[in-house]
């Protein structure tokens, strides 16, 4: 076990302890000289938290954004005089109110925003939004469900697919919603729902995510350089925050698409609310469009719920939530000569969020995430496989905001992870190559926000024990990100950090379609994977409605586990270690004009991987990528959008000839070597070829209308309007070219009561 840095550990331990033990009523302890204004921004009709709402105090030209839970905090507010607080949020009428604060006493505001009936951000034209000039948010995308709803729906609205419109986010085809960030593999992306890890967030071979968009309130998505409260992955972090449910009225929604039918019920409960959604596939016809006309007897469902409880008489300032997400996919062939498959997630979580009279936020969460994937071969040539992942996690996060606006954050994370992967070896015996481990990590960070034009987030994450038994002990992951605004319109942003990952999937990179990817803790014969990120960018806000973000990045990854392609015997290791490198440049232009919204992004990137001393481009390395989105609010509840996506060709391995190979199928009849041989490919150097460029245009039209007491939402989309034949892969044995989605009109109807 590695040497433990005791002083560092003790510093963080006492930091956390002091935050935890800080009594809610000890505001005086911190001797606040100024006054703090705190608030919660919610929807007046449903009580749902509104995230990233702009809150401005006019007289002093300061303000804040509401966080992912709808809370905001403004420190050092002058007391004793009336102040005008202006709150604005996309799709809601702006709200102005006059408040007066008493010196040394925190003021809490409950701000209920009234929604407009239109979709687009008309409020933006009315009130100037607060600009957080020193926010240390490089490579961070915050998306509200309103923004996600504006994106083209395709066959099924999907949050993961929507993310692929962002620069730096790549997919390898229309078939999969799996995504690759800045040259990192898909298993380097952490996906969480309210802080609980989702190990396999996909339905149907990765066609769709298991998170029903109806359940989503907002998403925080780090493409790199994530701050010290997050760990365990090398490339990106996506935290999905779900809705709380309607606190005022009971309501129900039902929807139907080509693929699935779904329903949502939400409503108030004493001192809280609940929301429950369910989705079930009813037709498998659409899979043929994605998977080369194959008939796939796949059936899936997912069920999500969340219950909130907040009673001042129980614990003042507290909010307790219980959540669950269950998903299941079954592919049953009803033929003993074919394999059956099933995979399922079950996630349960409990969170306690606590406010106090001081500017202290405290949150504790316990979650249990379980994944089960199984291949039942029956009498097919598939090997039986069963993957069980059991993750029990406890997190504590606390943050304190000083008068100076500086913030201190600290927390701890305890993960007890058990991975089992049962495989059949060549003697027919079932062996388990999974393992068990505990990760105990602590983090601390200090955000210097005292200067209006400079923000620095300095932190570290210390792993005291590791999941993997080799080198998985003490490891320090320092992180820093900063923002320096030269002039109000231009800011320089940057981030650097070290990241560690101790689990991996047994993913075969040469598979363009795979069923599910089994997770295992990195075996003892390999070191944990590690990465360094260097990111530098410039944010330019030309006007309030026109902005340009540019970022350059360099990512170095070491000890990357990769499938051992030279494995022949059971005694050979399943994984070998490699390294990777990625660098590139991204820019994103956003422009809002009248009822139009335009977003254009371009990314230029290089990704390399080296396994067994062979350097190659991984399958997700695309040099150029362009996304253009134009949305238009046509009035009368009509909404239209058009999206054009371009990606330069992905790597593939070229054919350099054929030969007739002795088949190893039936030695009893083939040992004389004179029976017919079958053609086999001669392949060139791995991934040195490039597929043709990919481009596609999608359009969508949405309409909201009411009949009697019910609201209807109709979405009409056309995928691949000009029927571009984007190559998906090349069938090596027949020479057949398999294309991605063709021209495909789709429709979704949603009913809300």
């Amino acid at each position, binding site marked *: 076990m590695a040497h433990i840095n005791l002083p560092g550990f003790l510093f963080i331990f006492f930091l956390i302890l002091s935050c935890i033990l800080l009594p809610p009523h000890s505001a005086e302890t911190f001797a606040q000289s100024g006054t703090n204004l705190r608030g919660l921004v919610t929807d007046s009709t449903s009580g749902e938290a509104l995230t990233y709402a702009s809150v401005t105090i006019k007289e002093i030209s300061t303000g804040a954004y509401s966080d992912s839970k709808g809370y905001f905090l403004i420190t050092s507010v002058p007391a004793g005089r009336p102040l005008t607080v202006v709150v604005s949020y996309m799709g809601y009428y702006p709200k102005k109110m006059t408040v007066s604060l008493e010196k040394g006493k925190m003021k809490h505001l409950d701000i209920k925003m009234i929604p407009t009936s239109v979709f687009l951000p008309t409020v933006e034209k009315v009130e100037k939004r607060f600009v957080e000039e020193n926010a240390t948010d490089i490579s961070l995308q915050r998306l509200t469900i309103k923004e996600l709803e504006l994106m083209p729906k395709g066959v099924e609205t999907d949050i993961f697919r929507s993310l692929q419109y962002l620069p730096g986010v790549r997919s390898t085809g229309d078939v999969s919603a799996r995504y690759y960030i800045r040259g990192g593999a898909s298993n380097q992306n952490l996906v969480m729902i309210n802080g609980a890890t989702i190990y396999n967030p996909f339905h149907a071979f990765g066609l769709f995510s298991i998170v029903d968009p109806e359940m989503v309130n907002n998403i925080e998505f780090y493409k790199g350089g994530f701050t010290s409260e997050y760990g365990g992955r090398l490339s990106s972090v996506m935290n999905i925050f779900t809705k709380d449910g309607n606190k005022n009225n009971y309501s129900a929604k039902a929807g139907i698409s080509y693929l699935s039918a779904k329903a949502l019920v939400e409503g108030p409960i004493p001192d809280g609310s609940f929301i429950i959604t369910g989705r079930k596939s009813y037709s498998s016809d659409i899979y043929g469009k994605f998977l080369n006309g*194959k008939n796939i007897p796949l059936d899936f469902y997912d069920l999500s719920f969340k219950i909130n409880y907040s009673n001042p008489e129980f614990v003042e300032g507290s909010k307790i939530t219980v959540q669950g997400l269950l998903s299941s996919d079954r592919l049953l062939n009803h*033929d*003993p*000569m*074919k394999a059956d498959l099933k995979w399922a997630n079950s996630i349960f979580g409990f969170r306690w969020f606590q406010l106090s009279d001081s500017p202290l936020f405290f949150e504790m969460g316990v979650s249990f995430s379980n994944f089960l994937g199984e*291949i039942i071969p029956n*009498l*097919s*040539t*598939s090997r039986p496989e069963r993957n069980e992942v059991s993750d029990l996690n406890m997190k504590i996060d606390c943050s304190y905001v000083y008068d100076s606006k500086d913030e201190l954050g600290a927390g701890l994370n305890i993960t007890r992870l058990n991975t089992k992967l049962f495989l059949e070896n*060549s*003697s*027919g015996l079932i062996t388990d190559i999974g393992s068990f481990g505990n990760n105990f990590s602590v983090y601390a960070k200090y955000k210097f926000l005292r200067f209006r034009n400079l923000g620095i987030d300095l932190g570290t994450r210390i792993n005291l024990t590791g999941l993997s038994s080799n080198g998985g002990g003490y490891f320090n992951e320092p992180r820093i990100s900063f923002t320096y605004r030269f002039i109000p319109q231009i800011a320089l942003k940057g981030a650097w950090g070290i990241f560690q990952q101790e689990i991996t999937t047994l993913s075969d990179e*040469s*598979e*363009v*379609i795979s*069923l599910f990817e089994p997770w295992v803790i990195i075996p003892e014969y390999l070191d944990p994977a590690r990465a360094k990120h260097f990111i530098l960018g410039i944010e330019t806000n030309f006007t309030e409605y026109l902005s340009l973000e540019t970022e350059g990045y360099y990512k170095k990854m070491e000890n990357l586990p990769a499938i051992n392609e030279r494995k*022949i*015997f*059971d*005694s050979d290791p399943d994984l070998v270690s490699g390294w990777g490198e990625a660098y590139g440049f991204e820019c994103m232009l956003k422009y809002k*004009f*009248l009822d139009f919204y335009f977003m254009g992004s371009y990314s230029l990137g290089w990704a390399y991987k080296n396994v067994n001393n062979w350097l190659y481009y991984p399958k997700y390395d695309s040099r150029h990528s362009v996304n253009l989105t134009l949305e238009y609010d*046509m009035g009368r509840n009509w909404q*239209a959008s*058009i999206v054009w996506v371009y990606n330069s060709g992905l790597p*593939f391995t*070229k*054919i*350099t*000839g*054929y*030969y*007739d*190979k002795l088949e190893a199928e*039936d*030695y*009893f009849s083939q*040992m004389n070597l*004179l029976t*017919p041989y079958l*053609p086999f*490919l*001669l392949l*060139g150097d791995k991934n040195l*070829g490039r*597929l*043709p*460029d990919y481009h596609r245009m999608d*359009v969508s039209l949405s309409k909201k209308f009411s009949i009697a007491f019910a609201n209807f939402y109709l979405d009409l989309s056309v995928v691949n309007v*000009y*029927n*571009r*034949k984007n190559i998906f*892969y*090349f069938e090596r044995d*027949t*020479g057949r*070219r398999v294309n991605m989605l063709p021209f495909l009109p789709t429709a979704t109807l949603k009913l809300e009561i």
Partner: protein
Amino acid sequence: MKKLLSGKMPLKAFCLLIVFSPLLSSGCRDENFDPKGDIKEKYILNCILRSDTTVQTATLSESYNVQGYDPMENRTDPAVEHADIRVWVGDSVYVFKEAEMPRSDTSRYSTRIKYYYAENFRPQADKPAEILAVLPNGRKLHASTTTPLEVQTDYAETDSLVPVQGRDYIYAAWISYSSPTTYFYPRFSLVYFKIVNGLPVRFSKFIPARYTFSGGKEVPVYPLPATGVKYSIDMDALRRTMQDISAGDPDKSKYVILAIVADVMALDMNLSGFYSSGKLLSDGFSVKVDETDFTNIEGGLGIFGAYVNHELAIRIDKKYIRSFGYKTTLVDE
């Protein structure tokens, strides 16, 4: 421009964009794509030394290209003739001769099968062996291996007489001191005579491990090579095989059942590797675009390996044989 961005013009512009975008893009709907790179010239040598015969064979061929992408389009036999192939086992060297034989399936190649052979050559167990092929163009292909260790019957675990009372399967086991990575390929055969024109003719029929239903039909399931040293078949599979040998023939008395022969091949390390890399484990849905290949031929492709085989007989209960109407001996009962 100003007009375009105000009033009703944006809507018109947006609609026009949607309507005309397919037309604007019609020129880029498809793109020619050639997945081939520079074609490489490779030579393929296959030679598997067998302990169950004194005639050893080898094949030599070259890689090829086709006009399109379907390799089955190639109609030119890629066999390479006039090469010098030699195999050394211990102190002995065997020179292979060229030969031809008729091809049963002429759907792809119409020429006779060309191969190389060496007579009076039965490899012994646990011996180093080496092969060298010198092609007419001077290129050399070389490989080496070690023949596997002998296999012996594990009598304690193997059934000597079937059916075994209270069991619905037949069991065989063997002992080998080879490396744990050695693959064994077992197969049971029913050995019987059929009286044809008054003379007994010997036949053998593979017995599947079991039968199963697939697509509404019953299909046999045969074993695959594995590193395990045990093997079993269902009694039902034996019963079905016993019935099949005389299916449609009302005169069952023409059949004489001798025994079940359990044949086990022990593959050497190269053959084991060749087999395990060639297993196409398809779930029917995963799509893999690159395939792994195994070869131990230096300077080319293919396989040089060896196997030893071992047979053991399992007797069948006479009452059981007679229950099918068959005889148990060639001598009148």
